[in-house]
């Protein structure tokens, strides 16, 4: 065996081990008790794979590799230390970085290989840069919206879907042409450019409430583009990692779409906000019952079972630590407190769980929608904090509602419902919530953090 072949075999074996570690890593994520093993497996796999790659016979110069690795690590550390409330935009940004890497490598590979690119190679290479390009700009847009640098409201215009469809066809059409005529390399920048623009246009009509689905979908695209890169480089580790990431993102997007009772195409081409322009205007003054922190505290103290329903508003108000104090003081009084988590509460899958876990609320108190919905009729108080559409009973009853059919948390079945809200303005989707006008609903008007803090003081807890 030549030295060349020996090093190749060594690299392949290392990649094989890394692939197994990656799969184990995801398997261990299935439960919070083993999840941290998953990280170690992933890290070991990653270090092995990078170290193995450095053995590659073709590498003649290490200087720039080392500089880039150090620089990337330097950027990675602050990105890993962001606040938990900023995790959705950080995640979107990292999808963008992943896609950037794939797109750049694909572009470089094209110019190194052209015009001798076999048809299949050219097809996967096009797929790599199309998916990579649209994921890069799409994720940047998503991150900008989540960070509120860009407007969160959907931006829509007439003929939007047609424009998007045309752009997509241009990208795919150019790719097909390039596959058939590999010498026409002027088409390549067109493919990349159109994909970049397509990514921007794909995400601008999407509003904040749809972010969980979009982030999951971009996650899937990022994975698929990496898998395509694996085909181009004939690197099986990359194919495996990309396929795992792609299927993970796809599963999450399906879960998110289901939780919003919407199809994929609807999320991508529907732009939620435009569905119901009438609802935002109809703010006639129906009577609501409101309560003070003292009254709310008295009702909570008298309850046996309390379910807290957190939503994105809790994250915005940074109220999760006050909520934890409320959990503590009520638990001490012998009240059973649980949290009802809607799959799309927040801005990315699982967002609420992370925020509540950060506030030290034990994860066995965080209950999924399907599990807790049957318990609401036996619940004394349902306390809604910064959630709106996911509690809207119109989703069950009102066929004309844009959210009709969306699975919701049945808070209206609790004996008493308390809703902490700044004012009576409708939620993100601009849909009025009949829950607020029920007889057994008490509106607690104010900032979530301050209001919960006031209840906690009333109950004699807090620091």
């Amino acid at each position, binding site marked *: 065996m030549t030295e060349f072949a020996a090093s190749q075999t060594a690299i392949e074996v290392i990649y094989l081990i890394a692939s197994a570690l990656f799969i184990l890593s995801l398997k261990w994520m299935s439960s919070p008790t083993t999840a941290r093993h998953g990280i170690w497996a992933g890290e070991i796999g*990653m270090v092995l794979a990078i170290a193995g790659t450095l053995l590659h016979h073709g590498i003649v110069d290490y200087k720039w590799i080392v500089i880039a690795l150090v620089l990337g690590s330097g950027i990675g550390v602050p990105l890993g230390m962001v606040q938990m409330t900023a995790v959705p935009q950080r995640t979107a940004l990292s999808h963008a970085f992943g896609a950037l890497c794939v797109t*750049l490598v694909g572009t470089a590979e094209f*110019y190194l290989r052209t015009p001798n690119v076999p048809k299949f190679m050219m097809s996967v290479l096009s797929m790599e840069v199309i998916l990579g390009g649209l994921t890069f700009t799409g994720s940047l847009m998503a991150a900008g919206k989540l960070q509120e640098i860009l407007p969160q409201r959907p931006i829509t215009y007439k003929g939007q879907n047609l424009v998007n469809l045309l752009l997509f066809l241009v990208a795919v059409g150019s790719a097909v042409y390039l596959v058939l005529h590999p010498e026409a390399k002027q088409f390549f920048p067109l493919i990349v450019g159109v994909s970049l623009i397509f990514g921007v246009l794909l995400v601008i009509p999407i509003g904040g409430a749809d972010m969980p689905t979009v982030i999951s979908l971009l996650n899937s695209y990022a994975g698929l583009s990496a898998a395509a890169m694996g085909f181009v480089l004939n690197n099986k580790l990359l194919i495996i*990692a990309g396929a795992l990431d792609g299927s*993970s993102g796809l599963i999450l997007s399906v879960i998110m779409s289901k939780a919003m009772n919407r199809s994929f195409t609807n999320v991508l081409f529907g732009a939620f906000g435009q569905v119901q322009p009438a609802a935002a205007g109809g703010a006639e003054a129906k009577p609501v019952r409101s309560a003070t922190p003292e009254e709310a505290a008295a009702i909570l103290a008298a309850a046996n079972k309390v379910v807290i329903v957190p939503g994105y508003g809790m994250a915005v108000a940074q109220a999760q630590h006050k909520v934890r104090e409320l959990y503590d003081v009520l638990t001490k009084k012998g009240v059973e407190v649980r949290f009802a988590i809607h799959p799309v509460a927040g801005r990315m899958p699982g967002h609420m769980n992370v925020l509540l*876990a950060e506030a030290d609320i034990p*994860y066995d*108190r965080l209950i999924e929608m399907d599990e807790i919905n049957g318990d609401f009729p036996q619940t004394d108080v349902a306390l809604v904090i910064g959630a709106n559409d996911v509690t809207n009973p119109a989703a069950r009853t009102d066929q004309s509602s844009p959210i009709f059919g969306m699975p919701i948390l049945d808070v209206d079945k609790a004996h008493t419902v308390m809703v902490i809200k700044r004012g009576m303005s409708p939620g993100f989707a601009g849909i009025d919530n009949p829950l607020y006008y029920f007889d057994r609903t008490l509106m607690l008007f104010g900032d979530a953090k301050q209001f919960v803090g006031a209840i906690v003081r009333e109950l004699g807890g807090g620091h």
Partner: protein
Amino acid sequence: MGSNLIDALFVFMLAAFIGFEVIRHVSPLLHTPLMSLTNALDAIAVVGAIVLVGEKKSTFATVLGVIAIVAATSNVVGGFLITDRMLKMFKTSRPVKK
């Protein structure tokens, strides 16, 4: 070439099925850390960029490769770091047994 391609498609198909089966069992509780972990793993694309930079075939390729390494490495480091920070926060109120 032909057999390589078929091999690669087999690998992709099997990995996708494994992905679906494994990830279906991930608790919704951990969907956020799952996404940041898959993101870090996905940054394995860095190996392609490393070879690209190391081979020094053209200045253009090297420049793109360096940016690619920086982007992917920041995902590796940032992704594992934040996933670990998140998972450390998940605590149960019950002593180990269910």
